[in-house]
């Protein structure tokens, strides 16, 4: 009899009794899903307000003027100040960004500490030579730089930001714990191709650890 009463009371007050639980649940979910990701990443701005669009469209440069494969197979990455200074030995425009750049880096002979969105840690070896447009385009026509349908850097944009369209820089978000860029490739992304059986025969690559680690 007593037991029955208890049960009834429990059923009636179910919501009331569970309220603290639900409250905790909701707060935790909100924290875990919304607040936490924001807290985990810090936001940084590039040291120089560089515009790819200006360089491509106004100055008529091509991507490969700065980003190219060297003869030894390594990738040039970002140009050193010395290379930029071949045009910007003194300011050629009027923008504040350029003036700052010339003053702070060219004149002082310093390298710009660019924040690289796709920066990989020391233990990763990424070969730009192995992921060349010409090679990937043998199967993936959408990456063929010769094809006028495609953007010239369609393959690059698979991993990198579509910088040629960007006039303004995208904020760099860094994981406070790991120091990784939020937009960099993690291993699962590499494996989406490397572990894909279709790739194995065609590309001479495989998913062995040493394919990408050093």
């Amino acid at each position, binding site marked *: 009899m007593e037991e029955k009463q208890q049960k009834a009371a429990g059923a009636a007050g179910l919501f*009331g*009794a*569970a*309220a*603290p*639980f*639900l*409250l*905790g*649940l*909701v*707060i*935790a*979910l909100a*924290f*875990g*899903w919304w607040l*936490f*990701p924001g807290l*985990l990443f810090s936001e940084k701005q590039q040291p120089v307000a560089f515009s790819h669009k200006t360089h491509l469209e106004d100055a008529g440069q091509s991507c490969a003027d700065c980003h190219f494969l*060297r003869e*030894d197979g*390594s990738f*040039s*990455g970002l140009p*050193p100040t010395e290379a930029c200074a071949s045009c910007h030995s003194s300011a050629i425009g009027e923008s504040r960004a350029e003036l700052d750049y010339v003053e702070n880096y060219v004149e002082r002979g310093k390298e710009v500490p660019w924040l690289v969105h796709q920066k990989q*840690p*020391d*233990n990763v070896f990424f070969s730009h030579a192995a992921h060349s447009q010409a090679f990937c385009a043998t199967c993936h026509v959408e990456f063929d730089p010769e094809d006028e349908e495609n953007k010239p850097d369609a393959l690059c944009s698979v991993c990198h930001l579509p910088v040629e369209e960007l006039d303004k820089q995208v904020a760099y978000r860094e*994981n406070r*714990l*790991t*120091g*990784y860029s939020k937009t960099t490739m993690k291993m699962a992304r590499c494996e989406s191709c490397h572990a894909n059986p279709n790739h194995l025969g065609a590309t001479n690559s495989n998913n062995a650890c040493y394919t990408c680690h050093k």
Partner: protein
Amino acid sequence: MGFDRRAFLKFAGGAGAGIAVSPLPWKLLDDVSIWSQNWSWIPANPRGETTYELTTSKLCPSACGLKVRLTGGMPVRALGNPDHPLGGGLSALAAAEVQLMHSPARVKTPLRRDSGGNFIPIGWEEAEEALAGGLDAAGADIACVSGDETGSGLDVLSAFLGERGSDKLYLMPSEAQSAARAWRLMGGSGQPGYDLESSDFILAVGANVLESWGTFIRNRRIFAAARPHGEEPERGFVYAGPVQNNSAAVADSWIPLKPGSELIFILGLAAILTQRGLSAAAPDFASFREMLAGFDPQKVYALTGVSPQTLQNTAAALLRADRPLVLAGSECNQGGGAAQILAALALNLLLGGRCLRDIPLARPVLPAAEGRQEVQNRDLVAYMAQKPNPQALILYEANPVYALPDPESAAVALRNTPFKVSFSAFMDESSALCDLVLPMPLGLERLDDIESPYGCGKVFYALSRRTLETADTRHGMDILLRLSAGRGGLPASYREVLEARSAALGADHSALEAGEVFEAKAPAPGRLMLLPEILNRAAESKNSVISLALAPVQKIALGTAQTGIPPFNVKTIRGNELSGAEMSIFINSATAYSRGLREGDRVRLAGKHGEIRARVLIFEGIVPDAVGVPMGFGHTALDVFSRNKGANATELFTATPEAGTGFTLWNQIDVSIVKI
């Protein structure tokens, strides 16, 4: 509803459940492990374009060729350069050369000793003033010791001293000087050259040709070229010496010799060869042959421990060869005396001398400078024995307090000198006793030159080049030239000296600066004397009875007297060579048995002046009644990689004048061993 304990528990439960199904714990779990891959206190890889610069090692005595790898303009590796005439691989020292630029033993700023006896860092202006003041006060009573024997720095030093009225320029003792002395006595003009490339049989007597003798990286490349992997060698190689050292390990055979008996062994071979009818076109050949009659195999056996049979076999092997070459030297590249080199050169002449060269040395490019021969002819050890007390002493990349025989008396001499300055890249034992220490750039940080290092077979000239700008070093030669301010016709900068040297040799200086090497064929020697009288007198002095002979062993992995043990090379020391601070000396089991010693026993080895302590290692690759002592340990200055490791073998060295040649030598050292 109050927020009681029960409610709180429910809240906590809900929060726990919520967190668990949110990304938080899982993302953190993942990120924490990623964090562990990139700890901020672990050094990061440099990034940047890889470039290479060719140069020649000024630091390694082999003068091997280097290909320096730079990343983003920063040198990161020293690689070998197979196209370099003295290159084709690396010595254990050259392999560490880039790292040595950042060694903790480097002198980072000019240092002056204050009244309290401590070093204080000073600026360059003050340093150069102090140098000028100290030297000016000494007037003409200045002596200088140079550890660099191949560079034009010698010209500058000589001219600098000469301009001040001093001729006391000395070289740290080396094989090159003994050889030069012998060569001069025989009537040679430049320095003896050895065309190893064309020889088909090499007999190395005492000379550790594959580790430390001469241009040893080139020697090794030549050795390797004649030995295809796993096949019968195309060129014979026999090593004779007291210890089964690195050269002996790969020789076709090892002929054990009593320490210091190299001369007798060579004369024994010469005796057999003259009996077989070989002769040399020397004016004194007849008396030479006569003198050799006294070196019959039995006598040679008594003095060297080499059986008559082995002696005959070795002579036969030399006879069989078309272009044999006999190289004599001392294991540790010093103290072997001139007579044994003289004897080896004579033996080569008997054998036709087809691989001998007379390498001309460029004339001094500074009017006031002496020739290299004159400098080589001076004997630093003999000078020190006179207990001179110059008013000022310049140490130029020299560390006599560590490297001279009886280093303690060198230290005393240094202490008694009123003003002493050290031009050194490293804070070595000698620098530590100086009043002024001026940091030198290393070979990879400075423009300097290397001319025909001893052992090479051609005229050789190369420049070391600057691969890294180092902020606070200055080339000592530039300082001295600045100090001279044009007096005595001295140029303003060292570069001008080097350019003049290139011009004198007919070499393209700018190509040399880009890493190219100048080479020119050296002529065969002219008519040389065999000097039997000198040889005989030197040989007769070898009769002294030695109870336990010292057999030093040099390994280039342990660096030079200046560098100490490079940081990366500490790991190359074998476990049985050094344990903590205690090093091993080695004797064979017969020697151990006769002296009641066992492996691991702690012993005291005593020479005439000093003593060292070590542990006994039984090693069968050493002749009886001899004790092997590794060189390169026992540093008391430099850095943690060199300090507090074993004892300095030079403590045991006792220099004596060599009968006949008058040069000092220290290759027959009697030591006592006592268990402690």
